[in-house]
């Protein structure tokens, strides 16, 4: 035990994203919104997207959940901004875990929730698009 050390539950990156979350809020007139809940712990995460020319121009989140859930959604929105929809569909929670420098094993599901919220937002966007795919098939 050292007097000068700051003891925190999560690592510095996770704490930073929890204390100073990036992209917190709702995208105005969002093109896609995904809200998902974790049956395991009761957390709820909402991600809203602005999509331009097949790319994620803006992403924002709101989270009802623990520190790692908030940090995971903050990091996920940071990572996906600028990506194409195709890239975003392949987004994996592992990217969030890696970018955060790791999460405690019991908190990995928080990053899964971020992946699910993002994918739900993309599905919502695609569901709203005119059904051109059928016509060209």
């Amino acid at each position, binding site marked *: 035990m050292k007097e000068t050390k700051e003891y925190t539950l999560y690592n510095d990156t996770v704490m930073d994203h929890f204390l100073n979350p990036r992209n917190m809020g709702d995208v105005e007139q969002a093109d896609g919104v995904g809200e998902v809940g974790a049956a395991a712990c009761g957390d709820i995460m909402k991600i809203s997207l602005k999509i331009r020319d097949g790319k994620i121009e803006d992403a924002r989140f709101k*989270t009802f959940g623990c520190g790692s859930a*908030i940090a995971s959604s903050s990091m996920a929105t940071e990572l996906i901004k600028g990506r194409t929809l195709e890239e975003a569909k392949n987004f994996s929670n592992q990217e969030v875990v890696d970018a955060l420098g790791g999460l405690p094993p019991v908190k990995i599901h928080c990053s899964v929730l971020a992946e699910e919220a993002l994918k739900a937002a993309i599905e919502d966007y695609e569901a709203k698009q005119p059904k051109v795919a059928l016509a060209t098939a």
Partner: protein
Amino acid sequence: MDKRSVYLDHQTTTPVLEEAFQAMVPYFREAYGSPSSLHRFGLQVREGLKEARQKIAQMINAESEEDLIFTSGGTESANLAIKGFADANVRTKGNHIVVSAIEHPAVMNSVEYLSKHGFEVTQVPVDIIGRINPEDVGAAITPKTALVAVHLVNHDIGTIQPVKEIAKITAEKGVALYADAQAAAGWMPIDVRDLGVQLLSFSPHRFYGPKGIGVLYRSRKARVTSHIHGGVQEGGRRAGTENVPAIIGAGVAAEFAVREMDQRVAHVAMLQKRLYDGLWKHVQYIKLNGPVPGPLRICNTLNLSTEFIEGEGQLLLLDYQGIAVASGSSCVSKSLKVSHVLSAIQLDHALAQGNIIMSLGKDNTVEDVDYVVETFAKIVVKLRNMSPMWKEFEEGVIDSVIAPTGRGKSFTQHAADISGKPAH
């Protein structure tokens, strides 16, 4: 500017009292003998040990200091009370145990262990403030009941239980009563004879004694079988060389707990009321779990649920501002499950998630409490701005559990809708 540091987790553990610490010091390097030894090093220690035993016996008005068994902590004491008593009495009394639904895990899991080894268990429910109804205990007792296990004060929500009334019923039916006094000891007077309990456990680190020492009081009428096998320490009921320094410190802590009981309780109850009034004045949509401050609630804790936000976030932000608290939210527990106490009082899932436990101590001040109120109010705003639930509440998509507006669906329904499964 240095951050203010406010420790509000005294129901988890407390710092060691200066006097207790000083009394312990010689027992590490000077009087280091084992009390079982027959030479002067051992004999020298026996005296201090006996004195500590007497002080702790006086604290609970035990008939004799010989009625105490020292263990490694409250958990071991609870294990010994339940498993040791069950083992010693299963043949003569029966294999049935009655417990309340909101016991500490040390009790719950000891009973669960027995249920896998031939015992039958009846759990008695509690009301919405966490009170056990003595009549329910009476109704649960069968001719095969060996033991009733209840607590004096609930560790999570601070409810004071009607143990004396329960003891009247168990005495009438000839069943032994074990009371877990872990959350009560040091914060309310305890008199084992007046209560009428046959077994009672607690650990001094909850009232400014050291960790690593637990106490089990056992009236001479109640037999327990040892569960730690070895030498014949503690009257053959708990083997192993005594943790002498800790027992010495516990004795001093017990002595001060008795001497300062009135002033500690008065001070802490005043702070509890101030904290309660302050929080409820400055934060909307907040609910107290357990009884309101007063005769049914232990003087040092508040258990609150703040709606639309989750408990771990509150805990972390409070910690960042120098305030240490606990939480019964699922995100905080390693099992991802909401505290079984909150489930038993039928607290709505949304409120169980936003749970925080603040427990005061003798060294907290009015300034501490005012700082906590001010900081907590800011943290709630910050987290509500981050929470989708708050905006959805404002937009009428979901409704408040605490102060329903009649607009929108319940949080639990909403959570089930979006997760595809019910939230618990």
